[in-house]
């Protein structure tokens, strides 16, 4: 049994805030030290915005939980200074196998596109993920960054007072009052903050139970994702086998709706199921067992005055497609630079409403994809089962049926088409880097484009002239000058049919606008648009 989740990584210590005569006002308070809360805090702190993280616990997640982290979140973690340890520890995989009944129907290879720093996915236990984020918090603290992590600080009440949020917080030494200019609620699907504020969380309940078993085994299973529809060892249901670091395997067995959860979780019931799946001769130890049900739902709005929801507290999906933690990291990626501009008075408060527009778009995409996967895995009617089985049957013999097989559409980054922050597009350039898209990585001069972009507004020029920096209403966009000569991936991904390019890139590395050549007035207008200032007006 891995011991990391038994060690208090951020034990309770008394804060001077607890002894203050009047409630202390903090710039930003983050509630929840899971992957999303920690990412938010790191993002703000490394940009100099003071942040306090409150968590009712003092250690990393119990059990492996979220295990699949996609390319875009890894790129965000690179920007946060902690992508490397994750990728080093994580397991990379490209091959998947699909089984139906007693046979393999096909095999696929994700064949990742070349010329990216990060792989399409890694598998990594959530406890490692959180541990590396906590390490990054410690590193920032050592460098003097304004970030605090308070363990065993449980929020008891929250009130939005218009220009700040007021909290009461319980600790092992009693309660204290705390105020925050802005509160980010990253307290999970059951979000106590959401409940205290009496906010809706509506969506669709899926009547199904899934058993997760993490087992340690010395087996010759290759590093692949195996998915079974209706296998002999779990009739009428599905099963998934996926590798994690340290010889740990994630096994996910669908159990159906009418089951006794406590009974099913007992080792004497779990072990025979696993034997039937893995074979009688395979030796394994159970590390962690859990049974979960899920819903696909989201809040109507993620921003409520001074309180902003991110991650599972704002939206919840089925686990198929790895869209939970991955989308939560994209939430904070989207939110933190906006919050910084608002806090520093460089953008109007209404810029935060674009967080709602952009991330609700992302949440809806994730809910749609994960609902469709769930409907394929668990057909709702006799006719959908007939179609599902027909697709699987045909997939063994003809290629066309394979894209219809849906055991989870793995998380891809969200493009904010139609966002109010988007500026002009240039038709000659490739659609994949249109305004609203996350910048696509490419090798440039011995390094990587995304590392060079960093986390401010950037004017990326490719074989185009432009000033080294441009300032508009207190916001600076600095130039990154590149050439397409000797950089075929850069040319393919950013130029297309154009001879040259000027891209305005946001601090979250999403494209704001693009042109073939530099036009100062156009760039200034796009910068104002991207910062949520009135189009063409003065801030």
């Amino acid at each position: 049994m891995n011991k990391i989740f038994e060690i208090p990584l951020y034990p309770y210590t008394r804060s001077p805030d607890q002894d203050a005569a009047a409630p202390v006002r903090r710039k930003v308070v983050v509630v929840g030290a899971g992957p999303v809360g920690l990412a938010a805090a790191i993002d703000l702190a490394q940009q100099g915005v003071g942040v306090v993280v409150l968590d009712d616990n003092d250690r990393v997640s119990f059990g492996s939980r979220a295990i699949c982290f996609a390319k875009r979140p890894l790129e965000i973690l690179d920007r946060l200074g902690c992508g490397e340890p994750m990728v080093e520890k994580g397991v990379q995989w490209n091959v998947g196998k699909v089984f139906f009944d007693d046979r393999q129907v096909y095999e696929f290879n994700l064949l990742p596109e070349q010329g990216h720093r990060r792989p399409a996915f890694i598998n990594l236990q959530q406890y490692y993920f959180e541990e590396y984020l906590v390490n990054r918090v410690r590193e920032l603290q050592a460098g003097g960054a304004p970030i605090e992590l308070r363990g065993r600080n449980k929020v008891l009440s929250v009130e939005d007072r218009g220009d700040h949020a007021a909290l009461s917080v319980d600790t092992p030494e009693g309660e204290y009052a705390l105020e925050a200019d802005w509160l980010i609620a990253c307290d999970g699907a059951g979000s106590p903050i959401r409940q205290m504020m009496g906010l809706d969380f509506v969506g669709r309940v899926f009547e199904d139970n899934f058993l997760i078993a993490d087992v340690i085994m010395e087996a010759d299973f290759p590093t692949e994702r195996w998915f079974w529809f209706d296998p002999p060892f779990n009739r009428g249901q599905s099963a998934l086998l996926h590798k994690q670091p340290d010889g740990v395997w994630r096994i996910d067995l669908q159990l159906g709706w009418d089951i006794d959860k406590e009974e099913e979780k007992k080792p004497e019931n779990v072990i025979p199921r696993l034997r039937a799946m893995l074979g009688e001769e395979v030796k394994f130890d159970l590390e962690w067992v859990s049974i979960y049900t899920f819903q696909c739902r989201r809040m109507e709005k993620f921003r409520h005055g001074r309180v902003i929801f991110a991650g599972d507290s704002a939206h919840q999906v089925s686990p198929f497609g790895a869209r939970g933690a991955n989308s939560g990291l994209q939430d904070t990626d989207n939110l933190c630079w906006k919050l910084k501009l608002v806090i520093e008075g460089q953008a109007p408060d209404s810029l935060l409403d674009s967080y709602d527009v952009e991330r609700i778009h992302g949440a809806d995409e994730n809910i749609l994809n994960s609902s469709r996967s769930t409907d394929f895995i668990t057909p709702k009617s006799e006719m959908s089962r007939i179609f599902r089985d027909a697709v699987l049957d045909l997939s063994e013999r003809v290629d066309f049926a394979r894209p219809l097989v849906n055991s989870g559409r793995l998380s891809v980054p969200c493009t904010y088409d139609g966002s109010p922050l988007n500026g002009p597009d240039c038709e000659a350039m490739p659609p994949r880097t249109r305004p609203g898209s996350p910048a696509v990585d490419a090798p440039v001069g011995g390094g990587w484009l995304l590392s060079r972009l960093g986390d401010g507004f950037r004017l990326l020029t490719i074989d185009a002239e432009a000033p080294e920096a441009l300032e508009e209403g207190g916001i600076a966009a600095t130039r990154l000058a590149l050439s397409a000569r000797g950089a075929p991936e850069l040319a393919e991904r950013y130029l297309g049919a154009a001879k040259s390019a000027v891209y305005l890139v946001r601090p979250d590395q999403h494209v704001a606008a693009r042109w073939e050549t530099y036009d100062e007035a156009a760039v200034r207008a796009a910068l104002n648009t991207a910062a949520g200032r009135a189009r063409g007006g003065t801030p």
Partner: protein
Amino acid sequence: MSTLTTTPNIARPDDFYAALLATHEGLSKAESDALNARLVLILANHIGDVEVLAQALELAKGADQQA
């Protein structure tokens, strides 16, 4: 001789599949069967080519026998 397309040919397969299931939603099994029969006839007429249709019939038959 014309050849049946067996490589992926639908631009957004998930959208199509969802639309297919949505068309059946709320129908009884008998109604769904009838809808499927109409759909086969409509698509067959659209294809028109008897050689292609013969290959499609063979492919469908083979897959069915394996189940």
